[in-house]
């Protein structure tokens, strides 16, 4: 079992969709919202995902394909 922490950023078009709920149904991953700030235009969620490493990667690819931006929780790792 692996645990991964990521930051989801939702575009306005996805604000009303239950993306995290659907992700938990489509894939065998446990989703745990640790922090969030969502308003009517945009929003971010820090999400902890637990499950098989490959299944986590598949679930993240699915969310990304839906239009969610996925980043490391620490912000960008590549620096100038």
């Amino acid at each position, binding site marked *: 079992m692996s645990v991964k922490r990521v930051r989801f*950023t939702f575009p306005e078009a996805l604000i009303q969709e239950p993306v995290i709920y659907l992700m938990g149904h489509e894939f065998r991953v446990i989703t745990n919202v640790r922090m969030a700030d969502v308003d009517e235009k945009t929003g971010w969620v*820090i999400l902890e995902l637990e499950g098989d490493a490959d299944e986590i990667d598949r679930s993240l690819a699915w969310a990304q394909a839906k239009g969610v931006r996925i980043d490391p929780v*620490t912000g*960008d790792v590549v620096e100038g």
Partner: protein
Amino acid sequence: MSYATALRCRECHREYPLAAHHVCEFCFGPVEVTYDYDRLRRNVTRESIERGPASLWRYRDFLPVDADAAIDIGAGYTPLIRAKNLGKALGLNNLYIKNDTVNPTWSFKDRVVAVAASRARELGFQKLACASTGNLANSVSAHAAAAGMEAVVFIPTNLELGKVLGSLIYAPTLVKVRGNYDDVNRLCAELAGQYEWAFVNVNVRPYYSEGSKTLGFEVAEQLGWRAPDHCVVPMASGSLYVKIRKGLEELAKAGIIDEPKTRMSGAQATGCSPIATAWQEGTLNFRPQKPDTIAKSLAIGNPADGYYSLVQLRDTNGGCGNVTDEEIIAGMKLLAETEGIFGETAGGVTIASLKQLAERGTIHPDELTVAFITGAGFKTVEAVVDHLQPALEIDPTIESFDRAYAAGHLTEAIA
């Protein structure tokens, strides 16, 4: 002996030991180093600092490393120049340039890496690593070489030649990663989690970012132990911008300068401006961007200190420049032509933003203003190569020279 006492979460204030630990386990807030300011106040004076070496290690009491463990390749204590010509061009009567292009690997990254590398060695790490668009990789490679440590640095494939060679000369393991910026970022975040190495801006980031404070210390000392009225700082992750102010505040806590009232302004390129955009929209919630700018050293689309930068912009009544690639090149040329300093593209962002903020009236003409130039122009010659007046090419005769010189000046007169 260091005066550092703990790592403390900036959000929930939980404390952690001074280990390789960068994010709060409870709220995911960033952790930063705290110090025993009472002891600092009792033991550290202007005179004790002035007796120190001509490098950032003169401020060792304010850094989280024992002085004996310092890896010192001469980073810091760079010139603060009274910029009368540039000031005249911009209508600023009291302008200074902090010229950090003259660091050992020609960028301010030597400050942060000096502290991170020293602390990493103290913590028992033997490998230094980073993911970088150039300057950071150069500095990690150089410090590792001087410290006898191994360096593993990751860069995107499309970097300027100067920045690639600027790492390779120190013989690190240099890894070029194929893919776009997001791919490189994601891979390196995973690598940092998998390998027990000191990734300077990931697991030892709290120590790394402390190095930026030394710019604030130096400016105050070089101004005769006073804080400037206004600073203009380039923003990538936002860490430098936040930490310069922390440096000024720490000097005040230690009783070395008066309480700073410094207004802090930032500078970003339009092609990667998550902080400047949020500032313009009046929100503290920035939206990550995909970088697309010639200022690659500022190309951080999801800045770790973006939120804290926006808070500081608000709290210090600062402003934020947001400048195009054309303005960046014009800024690089203006700095070079007025003050004789060849800064890299990030310097162009700072000068173009300084101009923008002066024109808007955000900077008052008589404020003592310091603009920070954080990297040397020779690393990014590609940005300006097609924008400079070409050389006069002549035959080896006086007639040929006279003709070419007259023609050159005729062109100037017509222009």
